[in-house]
C-alpha cells in the first residue's frame, strides 16, 4: 500500500445552480506524478482551486500530510506544503524574476516590519538566505540568466518556468501545476517534461492538469478523469485509456 500524501473524500462544490464538483474523492501518494484530465468544463480547475485553498468546498473531507485542510485559507494550505501555478500565468509582472521567487520564500521566512527597520543581524542573514535560495531556484529551472529582468518581459516559456520556481520557493511537498504545457511547442514541452521529472526525483509530489493527453500518459504514474463534476475513472494510464466511460466522455457514446 502506497503512502498517501493527500486525501479528499466526498467533496462538493456548487456555484449557484451549477454542481461543479459532485462527490469527488481521490488520493495522491507520496512521490508520484498524479494527473487530472477531463473534457472542458469537467471541473478540473475547480478541483484544483479547492485543493489549493482558493475555493472553499461546500462539503467533504480534505487531509494533507496528516493535517486537516478542509476550508482552510490559501496561505495555510501553502504553509502546509501545497504550492501551485496558474493556467493563465499570474506572475508579479513588474517585479524582477528574482523578486518573484523571493516572494515565494515569504511563507518560510519571518522577518517583520521591526526587523526591516532595524536591519538587525538576523534579518539581514535571512534576507541573504532568501536571495541566495531564489537565485538557486532560478538556476534550477534554467532561467538564472534572466534573474534581473522584469517578469512581464520574459518569454512565455520562461514565464512558465518562473512560476514553477516561485512555487518551489515555498518548499512544497506537493507541487500543483495547472496546464503547464499550454501554448508550448513540442520542443518546449519536452524540456518541461524533463524539468518535472527532475522536480519529482528531488522528492516533490506532483499534481498536473493538462490537455495534452499524450504527455499525461507518458508522464503520470496515475490519472483521474473528471466529467461533469464527477470522477469517472482513476488508475494507471493504460487502464484509464481503455476505460469505456473515459472514451465515452471524450468521444461520445458511439465510440465506447
Amino acid at each position, binding site marked *: 500500500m502506497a503512502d498517501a500524501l493527500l486525501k479528499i473524500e466526498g467533496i462538493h462544490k456548487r456555484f449557484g445552480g451549477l454542481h461543479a464538483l459532485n462527490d469527488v474523492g481521490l488520493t495522491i501518494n507520496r512521490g508520484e506524478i498524479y494527473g487530472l484530465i477531463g473534457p472542458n468544463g469537467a471541473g478540473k480547475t475547480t478541483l484544483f482551486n479547492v485543493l489549493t485553498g482558493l475555493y472553499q468546498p461546500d462539503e467533504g473531507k480534505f487531509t494533507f500530510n496528516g493535517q486537516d485542510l478542509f476550508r482552510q485559507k490559501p496561505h495555510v494550505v501553502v504553509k502546509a506544503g501545497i504550492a501551485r501555478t496558474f493556467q493563465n500565468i499570474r506572475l*508579479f509582472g513588474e517585479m524582477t524574476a528574482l523578486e518573484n521567487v523571493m516572494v515565494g520564500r515569504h511563507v518560510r521566512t519571518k522577518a517583520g516590519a521591526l526587523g526591516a527597520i532595524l536591519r538587525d543581524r538576523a534579518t539581514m542573514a535571512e534576507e541573504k538566505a532568501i536571495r541566495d535560495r531564489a537565485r538557486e531556484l532560478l538556476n534550477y529551472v534554467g532561467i538564472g540568466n534572466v534573474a534581473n529582468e522584469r517578469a512581464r518581459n520574459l518569454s512565455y516559456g520562461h*514565464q512558465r518556468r518562473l512560476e514553477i520556481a516561485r512555487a518551489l520557493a515555498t518548499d512544497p511537498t506537493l507541487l500543483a501545476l495547472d496546464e503547464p504545457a499550454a501554448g508550448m511547442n513540442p520542443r518546449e514541452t519536452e524540456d518541461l517534461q524533463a524539468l518535472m521529472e527532475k522536480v519529482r526525483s528531488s522528492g516533490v509530489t506532483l499534481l498536473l492538469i493538462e490537455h495534452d493527453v499524450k504527455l499525461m500518459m507518458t508522464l503520470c504514474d496515475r490519472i483521474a478523469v473528471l466529467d461533469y463534476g464527477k470522477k469517472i475513472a482513476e488508475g494507471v494510464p493504460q487502464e484509464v485509456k481503455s476505460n469505456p466511460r473515459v472514451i465515452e466522455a471524450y468521444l461520445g457514446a458511439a465510440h465506447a
Partner: protein
Amino acid sequence: MPQNQSKRMLAFALSGIVLAVLPFIVGSTLGNSWVRTLDFALLYIMLALGLNIVVGFAGLLDLGYIAFYAVGAYTFALLNSPHLSIFMPWWFILPLGAILAAFFGIMLGTPVLRLRGDYLAIVTLGFGEIIRIFMNNLNAPVNITNGPQGINMIKPIEVAGFSLGKPVELFGTTYNSVYIYYYLFLLLAVLTVIICHRLQHSRIGRAWVALREDDVAANAMGLNIRNIKLLAFAMGATFGGVAGGLFASFQGFVSPESFGLMESIMVLAMVVLGGMGNISGVILGAVLLTVTPELLRDIIGPLQMKAFGRMIVDPENARMLMFGLALIVVMLVRPEGLWPSKRRKAEFHDALDDGIPAADSQAADGLKG
C-alpha cells in the same frame, strides 16, 4: 564600486549642508513666513511618505488618510493643553498618538479587507469624514474636543527644560521658533525616509508590491493578505499620527477644519504627482505642493497690481485656479508622476507602447506555433 560610493557620500554631505543652512538663507531673504512654509513642507513629507506606504507600496487607495493625522493631532492637543488641564510630556504623547493612529488604521483596515479600488476609496473617504465629524461634535454632552472652536494653547515640545515654542537668541540675532521646529521636523523627516526605504527593500516591502501586483497570486504564494494589508494601514497611519502630533505642538491650535477631505486629497496628490511608490518622487511632490501655492500667493497679487494697476481676479481664486491647471498639465504630460520608480515608469510606458502586455502577445504566438 568605491568611486560610486564616494560620489554618493559627497551628494549626501552636500545635501546635508544645504538642508542645514536652508532656513537661514530662506529666512534672511524671504522672511520667517517662508521658513514656516519649509516646516510645513517637512511635515507634509512625513504625511505623504506614510500615505505612500498604503497607496504606493501596497496599492490600496486611501482617501481618508488625514483622519490619522487628526488622531495624532488631537491626542497631542487633548493631553497637553489647558482644555482638559492635562499636561503630559511630549515624549509620551507623540508615540501614544502614533500608536492610537495605528490602532485606528487597523480599525479602518479590518472592515475594508475585501474591498478594492473604487470601493475601497469610497469607504476610506467616509472614514476620514467620520473622524472629522466626531471631532466637530464631541463637545456635547461632555465637552471632549471643544467642537468647531478647536483646542488652543497647546504646549510646544520641550527638550530638557527648553521650549521649542520660544524664540532663541544666537550670536545677537533672535530666531523665531520656526527655525527650531525646522530641525526637529527635518530630523523626523529623515528618519521617516530611512524607515520607508528599509521597509521597501525588505520581505514586508516585497509582500506589499506582490499584493499590489496580483492579490490572488500573492495569496496563493502563501502571503497572509489580511495581515499584510493591515500592516500597511497601520504603518501608514503611524506616520500620520506622528505628523499630527508635531502639527499640534507646532501650531499650538487644532480644529476639525484642518482635517477635511481637501487635505486628504492634497496628500494623495503629493504621492501621485511626485511618483507613487518612489520615495524621492513623493518627497518632491510634497515639497512642490506645499511651496507652489504659497509661491503663487506671493506672485499673483503683486503681478496684477503691476500689470493692470488693480486687482482683476481675486488672488486666492486665481492661485487655486493656476495650481489646479498645473496639476492637470503635469498629469497629462507625465501620468506616472514627476519622479516615478523604475517599476512604475515601465508600467505606464509598456502599457502605452504596445497596448497589450508582453506575456499575452507571446502566449498568442505560442498557441499559433
